[in-house]
């Protein structure tokens, strides 16, 4: 049994300790907002936060994250209010198919924590997630808008 702390709730899961966190989230716990795309940390669709840091959950053995705070896309909005990144995604109507966007937003939230006002170069370096619909132009605009909105908050 592994004890996990996900989105503020405790879960006990009975899986092999080398099982990637991604599949525990999706198949064992039922949090399907985190997506499988490649299984080799290339596409970023599986990005979640572990203690506030972005991680590609397909490469994180569940046995290594017991007791750490895991956050998924389902818990990004708080008290019914979208996170500024989600709000910017809504304002710019970013998603097309939307499949990669959970991971994309989780990566961006982590970036903004580290660099509240990222430059285009910061975005290029940090956001390596794949979007096959090609929403990158909207994503860049939404990141800047979210950064501005966060800055304006008290």
């Amino acid at each position, binding site marked *: 049994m592994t004890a996990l702390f996900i989105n503020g709730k405790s879960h006990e899961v009975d*899986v*092999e300790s080398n*099982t*990637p966190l991604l*599949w525990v989230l*999706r*198949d*064992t716990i*039922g*949090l*399907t*907002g*985190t*997506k*499988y*795309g*490649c*299984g*080799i940390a*290339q*596409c970023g*669709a599986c990005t979640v936060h572990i203690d506030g840091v972005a991680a590609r959950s397909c490469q994180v053995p569940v046995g290594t994250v017991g007791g750490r705070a895991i956050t*998924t*896309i*389902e818990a*990004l*909005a708080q008290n019914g209010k*979208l996170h500024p990144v*989600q709000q910017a*995604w*809504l304002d710019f*109507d*970013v*998603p*097309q*198919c*939307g*499949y*990669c*966007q*959970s991971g994309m*937003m989780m990566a961006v939230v982590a970036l903004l924590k580290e660099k509240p006002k990222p430059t285009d170069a910061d*975005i*290029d*370096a940090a*956001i*390596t*997630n*794949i*979007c*096959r*619909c*090609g*929403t*990158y*132009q*909207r*994503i*860049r605009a939404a990141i800047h808008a979210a950064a501005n909105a966060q800055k304006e908050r008290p």
Partner: protein
Amino acid sequence: MTYMANLSRRSFVIAGAAAGAGLALGFKLPFSPDLVRADDGTPEIDAWVVIRPDDTVVIRIMRSEMGQGTLTGLAQLVAEELECDWSKVTAEFPTPGENLARNRVWGESNTTGSRGIRESNEYVRKGGAIARVMLIQAAANAWNVPVSECSPANGLITHQPSGRSVTYGKVADAAAKLTPPADVPLTPTKDWKIAGKPLKRLDTPDKLVGKTKYGIDVRLPGMLYGAIAACPVFGGTLKSYDEATVRGMPGVQHVVRIGDFAVAVVADSWWRAKTALEALPVVWDEGKNVTVSDATIADFLKEGLDAEPTAVGNQAGDVRAAMAGAAKVVEAVYAFPYRIHAAVEPMNATALYTPERCEVWAPTQNGEDALRAAAQAAGLPLEKCDLHKTFVGGGFGRRGGPTDFVRHAVAVAKQVPGVPIKLLWSREEDTTHDTYHPITQCRMRAALDANNKLIGLHMRISGQSILASLAPARLQNGKDPIAFQSLNPGGAEGAFGYEVPNLLIDHAMRNPSIPAGFWRGVNSNHNALYVECFMDELAHATGENPLAFRLKYLKPKHAAVLQAAAAKAGYGTPAPQGVYRGLAQVMANASYVAACAEVSVENGRVMVRRMVGATNCGHAVNPELITRQVEGSFVYGLSSLLYGECTVRGGRIEQTNFDTWQVMRIDEMPKVDVVVMPDGEFWGGVGEPTISVAAPAVLNAVFAATGKRLRSIPIKESDLRSA
């Protein structure tokens, strides 16, 4: 705003004769007088529109949503005629089984070829208009006043003389009982209030919070998970496997064959299924195609450049005589590679089979085809099966023509009756068992007269037919008519843009063992590249400006989009230091599109700085959605221009995942500007056409920058390093 693609089996309670109407084929537009109720008991006004007592408007959408925005665009068209309150609109997908049972009342489900809006705009608008007429009639009846004194606006009906008003939700029940009018006039485009506007997508809010259900997200009680491995060599078969090796592994429940070419492990989680599959000793009979490689395929296609043609697609005058009498003949040979689709959601479907019934949940671009495939795989009649469409995590054609993901899921489920099975491809399985962008080569040959006028053009395409691979029944006397997409003499779908007095465009079909499929843009991708790069070569050969040269021969609608893209990009004015421009145009999926690329080349590396796209799609139902499709199509096209090549060795595809098959990421995204210029004269598609001009515009800009003609893609740094 809410909307749903409900994963629970939604059924309509049908009163009257429509219930048992069976599976009539051929599309009719019956606005059935029978009262049909939605799940919550709310009666339909007509098949497209359900209005709840709280004034929520549910609009039924038969086409699939894979990011292109058709769900929103079609809902806008219905809502336009309905004159409802857009903020109260939600949408849902009827199942293809329901559609068939009701004489295909919702029309086509096929969401390929950029046809979602252009081919259903009329009947969905009528669906909205008829419902509006019925609602007004119901209000007039209640007030006992003439219909002519009642007018609708924003979901509210007002009796003008008295000022009384009532919302749609209050009269919906009465309206549903009325006989629908036989026909209704549609709102002229110039009067559109909801259609034609850059409204936000209906499906965005759920996509922000992880709530949208894609095929991979289906969860059913008691569901098990399957992982699949098919013979890595196309045409090879499954010889044997040693089930005992994995029997005791955690969670493993079944090991089953799929046809004669694949095996699946079924377990209580996908990770356990995949882990066991990797441990399963499998022996393949790789078959005769094991000797197929890039080199054998290239030779096979090269032979076709000079062979007798399989089909002639476009012919005028006497091209042989023109060549013989030319002052100058220009010739070039091009090549276009295999490519994978690489939707980020890997192939999957979930199936529940019992001897009495089969149900499938799948991310499909074509619900009806997927349903037929499910029924066939189940060995059950269509009416004992149904298919529940989910949102689609990237389609790009992979989930349109092919139905392998549905058939294989049913094949597994059939061996585990009564248990829902979600069969999911690994990325590696998805990459190595795609239906690939067809491979072709092309010889372009032009005759110029003494005044450098283009008097003859022979285009010979040698290569693979998608239809021969995926839908051989659609071949016509062994010929593939869609091989000539964007090269046809005329027609509404994809005409050749240039007037050349002596013209021959022909095709020598050569089908290697790698399966080909529809890949966003389809045959227009290579056809546009060949034509537009060669036109650039001809402009250079005649010493003319590439825009001016093209405009001498282009038909008016083709010329107009090219001029618009050029003007927006500032073509002909000085570009920033080190930046060079290139042009391309095409007619595809019934739309006229063009691009102007701005690139710089440094140390052999091509950097696409800016792309300008222009599209005349006839009618623009949502200009913002169109702009996004142009942006996204450029990314899809440029990803493949820069990186996309599937190589073949030992009869199999060598690339396996995003480490060996690179795609464009945000750091390479050019600025994209889009001109949407509908002329109102036709209905054209949007999702695909602009993809086909991205690559040739960039290649022509690369020539402007370096003087090097790249006639084979993807661009390799080594091609340009000395530039």
